């Protein structure tokens, strides 16, 4: 079976996307530990029995609640130093006073990455550590089905009231007797979200008909996202929060007298914020949140203020469960925070610790086959035994000092056991589904090998590749491999004790995958065989020797390899943008050198006709011939090159051509300072922050307007008249959309009073986007059906491209519009002054497009962390969250850079078709190869580094980015192939 290289590349990339999907599914296991909450919670275990026959403890019922009412105030993105640091002292006087002198305990709670709201709420309420994949479904949170505090409280008949972020309402539907959810999608809203919560407060605090009140304040998070942790808006917000705490605390205290039990006020943050104000990663500012318990049951704080102790965020669930007299949720890995129950008697404290330890050890039993060997389990058993002894002494009425000391000893044993148990359970969360991961890796690697082996054939002038599917020699091997793989599958799936995704698939699918793996293997083997066979024959075509490579080729090879290798280091992943900026800078300088050589060498050559230099030049020409294996008429190309270069020198834009790499370099430098990204230097001031701050609104408006005009001039050159008008109107619509949602101002309208969602304006733009893309598609279809001249086709492609540019202009934040302008500018200059005169071959052009696409991915402010995904793009022109369009729009806005460059590549290559008939196929193949090399190597690296310290904070987000990028590239390659198809059909006609 013969395949054209475009088809081969698209098919390979689709297979690879499948492999990546299987790998991802194995790498991010769905929370397998979650036992359904099934039967209603029975009573917890009784106190450990004292040794000796017949003696039983007389306390087997659940301990009663310690607090009558609990108010949980969760302030989103409350960083530890906002309460305990200088900011707290300045802006939260009441909280500071309570911490220093009042009846309170303060802790620093450590959140586990990903520091995103939904997983953190889950962690706070279930006490478990949610898997990384929770981030991905963060916006579309289904109800929480695990055992959790809220469910326990509801089952126990507690009445819960909730006000705040509506993630809670989605997580716990029908759990609250009264609730009011606010959405957090309009990030620029600082006051409304919090007023929505506070307005209920006075009424609720007067009432008596609730037991648990949860308040979730979002304003601080929004301020952080928009202006950062050091903005002047943080102070007033903290003061507002402080006043709310004061109000709640005073109200709770005033009720204390009437009831027998005290109340508890808990203040915590779900996550902190980084120095730039975002969150999601694992920097110290993001993971350290304050945790404050305030209750009159506690002892008054005396003595000097000490640094708050570090606890885990998951500990809150167990502590609150004990405080409310509820069973601890089953999946909780948290430990009881002892000071909170410190006021109780020794017997009660021991009982609580025993309950906690019992729950943890049972969780361990359910999850580890060899639980008995776990040190924490052993420690717990010992502590339980001493606890029994203690009870025996206690029941005997021994009430002396000895009992007290012994009790303290048991307490210490328990605490140590709990800590060890909790640690070993937390470690288990990262349980990888190795079998699925391996299947995925095998597919991805086989595809990569196949692509690499087919390089010489696929890049030849025929651009075809023989895929040996039928040869009977391999069919035996094929069936044998199938059999062996199926046997392995059965053995693995029957013996594995943990859940495995690949085993849970239907056996037909599994068989299909096995056949695919074997078929790929046979293909690879036959390709290797062919290459060996060819190498035995006398060499017919010149082998590519390294000496004939130009500097640009060497740089491209070294850059690709270097970038792939750099993915093994976490810092290089965090700062990947630096790698790409570095590479494209060097690329520009290499191109500049090439241009200079082209120019100056020929200048000397022409007037003098110096023999030595002529020879020299011929040498270069030959070298480039050897390299351009896809140039069909290699004989002509030399003459061609001389002629074209000569005319290029005569042309007046010789100097523009020489200057163009420098202009591109300057553009890149400007873009680089627009969005400071990465981790280490992300806090540096950048131009983007300066523009988005509220006092520079007029500058931003001016910049956005100029950018939109520039976009129009750069795009309209090759569009038809209708598209030109549509483009102009669409860009106007973009500006009015940004004005409607309050990002920019019209010059005549100075008071932005009414801020709407801009739905009409955005939909207006969508209509034009669809219109332009539709016109383009119509042209493409026309060129295919009627097989008109290729100009119709290139116009069509350009129109599709300009439609996408318009969509990007709508979705980009206004301060990012210059990125789009520079993208178009660089593309225009490269096309006109660099690629055409230098006659770069298709592979070089494709790699340059890929590199620039990657660099623009980071220029637009993305990074390899989850926090920089601009979710707001998913809501442009939508009333509420609609899943499919939101995902599509967010993905488009995030990957706009690589996508636009890829489509531009297609435009450029299809205009080159007259010179090289196989250009599009070659381009598609190279693009697929450029994508599949890093992803395959990265998958191997991640598998090797799966116990690395930064696996969740650095490597996993990058893996998700790579995975999504593969899917997008597969779609692009399909589009390429479709375009190529048209062309080849035309050739056959």
């Amino acid at each position: 079976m013969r395949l054209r290289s475009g088809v081969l590349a698209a098919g390979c990339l689709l297979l690879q996307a499948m492999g990546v999907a299987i790998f991802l599914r194995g790498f991010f296991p769905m929370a397998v530990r979650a036992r359904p909450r099934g039967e209603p919670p029975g009573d917890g275990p009784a106190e450990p029995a004292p040794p000796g026959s017949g003696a039983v403890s007389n306390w087997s019922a659940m301990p009663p609640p310690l607090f009558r009412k609990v108010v949980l105030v969760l302030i989103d993105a409350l960083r530890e130093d906002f309460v305990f640091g200088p900011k707290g002292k300045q802006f939260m006087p009441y909280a500071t006073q309570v911490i220093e002198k009042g009846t309170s305990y303060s802790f620093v709670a450590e959140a586990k990455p990903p520091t995103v709201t939904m997983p953190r709420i889950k962690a706070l309420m279930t006490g478990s550590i949610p898997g990384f994949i929770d981030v991905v479904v963060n916006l579309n949170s289904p109800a929480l089905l695990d055992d959790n505090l809220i469910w326990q409280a509801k089952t126990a008949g507690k009445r819960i009231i909730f006000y705040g972020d509506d993630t809670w309402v989605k997580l716990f539907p029908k759990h609250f007797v009264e609730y009011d959810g606010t959405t957090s999608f309009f990030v620029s809203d600082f006051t409304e979200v919090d007023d929505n919560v506070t307005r209920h407060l006075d009424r609720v605090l007067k009432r008596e008909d609730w037991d648990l009140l949860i308040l979730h304040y979002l304003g601080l998070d929004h301020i952080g996202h928009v202006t950062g942790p050091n903005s002047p808006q943080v102070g007033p917000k903290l003061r507002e929060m402080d006043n709310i705490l004061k109000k709640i605390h005073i109200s709770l205290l005033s009720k204390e007298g009437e009831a027998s039990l005290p109340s508890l006020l808990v203040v915590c943050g779900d996550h902190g914020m980084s120095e730039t104000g975002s969150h999601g990663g694992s920097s110290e500012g993001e993971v350290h949140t304050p945790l404050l318990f305030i209750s009159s049951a506690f002892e008054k704080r005396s003595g000097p203020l000490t640094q708050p102790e570090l606890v885990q965020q998951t500990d809150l669930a167990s502590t609150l469960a004990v405080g409310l007299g509820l069973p601890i949720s089953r999946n909780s890995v948290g430990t009881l925070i002892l000071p909170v129950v410190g006021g109780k008697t020794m017997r009660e404290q021991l009982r609580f610790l025993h309950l906690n330890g019992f729950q943890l050890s049972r969780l361990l039993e359910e999850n580890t086959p060899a639980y008995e060997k776990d040190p924490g389990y052993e420690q717990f058993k010992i502590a339980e035994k001493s606890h029994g002894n203690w009870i025996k002494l206690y029941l005997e009425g021994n009430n002396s000092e000895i009992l007290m000391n012994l009790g303290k000893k048991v307490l210490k044993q328990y605490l140590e056991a709990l800590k060890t148990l909790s640690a070993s359970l937390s470690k288990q969360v990262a349980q990888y589904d190795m079998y699925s991961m391996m299947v995925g890796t095998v597919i991805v690697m086989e595809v990569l090998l196949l692509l690499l082996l087919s390089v010489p054939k696929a890049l030849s002038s025929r651009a075809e590749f023989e895929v040996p599917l039928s040869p009977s020699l391999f069919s035996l091997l094929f069936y044998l491999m199938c059999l062996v793989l199926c046997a392995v599958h059965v053995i693995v799936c029957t013996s594995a004790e943990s859940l495995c995704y690949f085993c849970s698939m239907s056996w037909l699918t599994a068989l299909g995958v096995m056949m695919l793996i074997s078929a790929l293997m046979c293909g690879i083997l036959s390709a290797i065989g062919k290459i060996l066979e060819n190498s035995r024959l006398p060499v017919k075509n010149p082998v590519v020797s390294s000496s004939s490579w130009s500097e640009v080729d060497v740089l491209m090879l070294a850059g690709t390899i270097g970038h792939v290798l750099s993915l093994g280091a976490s810092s290089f992943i965090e700062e990947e943008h630096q790698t790409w900026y570095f590479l494209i800078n060097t690329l520009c300088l290499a191109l500049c050198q090439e241009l200079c050589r082209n120019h100056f060498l020929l200048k000397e050559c022409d007037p003098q006709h110096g023999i030595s230099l002529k020879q020299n030049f011929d040498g270069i020409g030959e070298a480039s011939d050897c390299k351009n294996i896809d140039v069909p008429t290699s004989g002509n190309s030399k003459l061609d090159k001389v002629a074209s270069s000569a005319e290029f020198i005569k042309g007046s834009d010789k100097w523009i051509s020489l200057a163009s790499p420098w202009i591109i370099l300057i553009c890149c430098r400007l873009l680089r300072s627009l969005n400071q990204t990465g981790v280490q230097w992300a806090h540096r001031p950048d131009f983007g922050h300066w523009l988005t701050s509220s006092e520079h609104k007029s500058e931003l408006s001016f910049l956005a307007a100029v950018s939109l005009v520039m976009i129009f001039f750069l795009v309209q050159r090759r569009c038809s008249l209708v598209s030109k008008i549509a483009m102009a109107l669409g860009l106007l619509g973009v500006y009015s959309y940004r004005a409607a949602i309050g990002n920019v101002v019209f010059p005549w309208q100075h008071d932005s009073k009414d801020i709407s969602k801009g739905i009409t304006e955005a939909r207006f733009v969508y209509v034009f986007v669809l219109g332009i893309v539709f016109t383009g598609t119509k042209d493409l279809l026309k060129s295919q059906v009627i097989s008109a001249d290729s100009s119709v086709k290139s116009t069509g492609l350009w129109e599709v491209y300009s439609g996408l540019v318009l969509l990007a202009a709508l979705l980009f934040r206004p301060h990012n519009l210059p990125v789009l302008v520079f993208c178009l500018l660089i593309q225009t200059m490269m096309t006109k002054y660099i690629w055409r005169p230098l006659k770069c071959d298709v592979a070089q052009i494709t790699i340059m497009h890929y590199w620039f696409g990657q660099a623009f991915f980071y220029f637009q402010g993305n990074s390899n962390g989850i926090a920089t995904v601009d979710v707001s793009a998913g809501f442009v022109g939508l009333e509420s969250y609609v899943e499919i369009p939101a995902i599509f729009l967010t993905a488009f806005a995030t990957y706009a850079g690589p996508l636009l460059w890829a489509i531009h590549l297609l435009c450029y290559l299809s205009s080159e078709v007259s010179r090289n008939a196989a250009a599009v196929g070659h381009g598609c193949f190279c693009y697929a190869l450029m994508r599949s090399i890093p992803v395959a190597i990265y998958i191997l690296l991640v598998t090797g580094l799966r116990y690395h310290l930064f696996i969740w904070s650095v490597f996993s987000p990058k893996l998700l980015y790579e995975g999504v990028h593969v899917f997008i590239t597969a779609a692009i390659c399909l589009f390429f192939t479709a375009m190529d198809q048209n062309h080849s059909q035309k050739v056959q006609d």
Partner: protein
Amino acid sequence: MRDAEARRLWAANLLRAAAVPLTAVVPAFFMDGFTVLGTHLAWLCVCVLCVGTLNVGLCLVLKPSLPPKRSSVATKISRFLKCCIYFFMSCILFHAIIVLYGAPLIESVTETFLFAVLLSTFTTLQCLCMLGPNIQAWIRVFSKNGATSIWENSLQITTTCSILGAWFGAFPIPLDWDRPWQVWPISCSLGATFGYVAGLIIAPLWIHWNWKQLTYKSR
């Protein structure tokens, strides 16, 4: 004739290579608290001065360039002034390239400029000594197979190595090791220096190994 030339090249290159480590050691006897990392700017200045004077001195002594033409004092002065201007321009150009590569524009501008001066010393100054302010000759030497003597081959190799060294020196900057040598521009300037020294040693070796293939066309 060529053997003698090669021996002279060896001597000159080893002398220049030896001078670089000396710049790191010797000033410590005269200045309190002088270290390459700690007082990097001072070291940069010392290194630039030392390597620069050595290059100029060697150039005057050995005269590797082609037969000295009789020229008047005025032409000599104009040549000298031209050299100075070229050197200064190359410093500015290197500075601009470094900033384009992402060095901060305003803060630590002294460091960046001194690094540019260092690079110019390793590359441009050598070219000026060897070829004079003659752009055509520069282009000839740096195009493929353009070298006409072992000195020019050595020049090619040393210059390329210095720039490659500086390029590779930028690699460790993003790593989060918090080492003193990761501070801008220490790793780059050290990389350039190592590249320069390596180039000085590689050049005669390369010429030695490729002795047979080297056939210089007289112009």
